[in-house]
């Protein structure tokens, strides 16, 4: 059979190497399903936490600042806020990382954007944590 219709030589596979090393290293990323699993675990945590957060926001709509402080002064509310903030920014960082890996093809820009993604998620998360703790520990 001629290859003239294909517009070039048909590719021929001549790989002698076994796939075993790739399987052991779990692919090009060098890691397995850890990222995927943590994304799901944080998602599961965020189901009840986000539901509670919407309740909290509705509860505090139009409230005076002292009302917000009283709310966060309660240890349960402070802990739930800390939980949703940490889970949110962790989940956000993981999700945005996949988007950046998919669409930023230039290796250097991808590395830079991934680091920036982590930095922004960390700083915003810590900003929330400090604000919550400040309200939790001041009367």
């Amino acid at each position, binding site marked *: 059979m001629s290859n003239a219709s294909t517009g070039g030589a048909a590719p021929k*596979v001549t*790989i002698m190497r076994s796939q075993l090393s790739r399987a052991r290293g779990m692919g090009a990323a060098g890691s397995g399903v850890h990222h995927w699993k943590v994304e799901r675990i944080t*998602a599961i945590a965020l189901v009840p936490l986000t539901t509670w957060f919407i309740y909290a926001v509705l509860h505090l709509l*139009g409230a005076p600042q002292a009302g917000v402080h009283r709310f966060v002064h309660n240890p349960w509310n402070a802990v739930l806020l800390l939980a949703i903030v940490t889970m949110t920014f962790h989940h956000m960082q993981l999700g*945005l990382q996949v988007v950046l890996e998919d669409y930023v093809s230039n290796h250097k820009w991808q590395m830079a954007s991934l680091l920036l993604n982590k930095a922004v998620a960390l700083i915003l998360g810590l900003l929330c944590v400090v604000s919550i703790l400040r309200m939790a520990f001041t009367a």
Partner: protein
Amino acid sequence: MTDVRDALMIGTRTDGTTVQRPLSPHLQVYKPQITSVLSIMNRLCGIATSVGTLLMVWWLVASAGSPHAYASMQSFMGSWGIVLLFGWTVALVYHFVAGLRHLAWDAGYGFELPQVYASGIATLVATGAITLLIWIIGLVVYL
């Protein structure tokens, strides 16, 4: 061909000759379907929800800050910010419901095509209903 990954892209024509297939399909050649459109929407709403977290950060920082900071945050949320708050609610609720759909898939449920279509429609209906419910409660509390 020396890279083992290239071997995964080799296909065979009906006449038996080999051909190098493209790595991934081209998005633009497909007709939009409820499956693909909802998938793209889930990603876009995830990104929008990420932007929306800035409102949460501002709310917490302003609440912990000076009375002036709290007042300016409140006046923004009560005027132009309400548009952003509504957009954040829609994106968050969609990403939430679509996320539940994904968790069901991860657990092995709902893979039959009729189920996929039904859960897709349900996701859209639930997003509308939950968003409306949140805003009706919110407006009743606020006004």
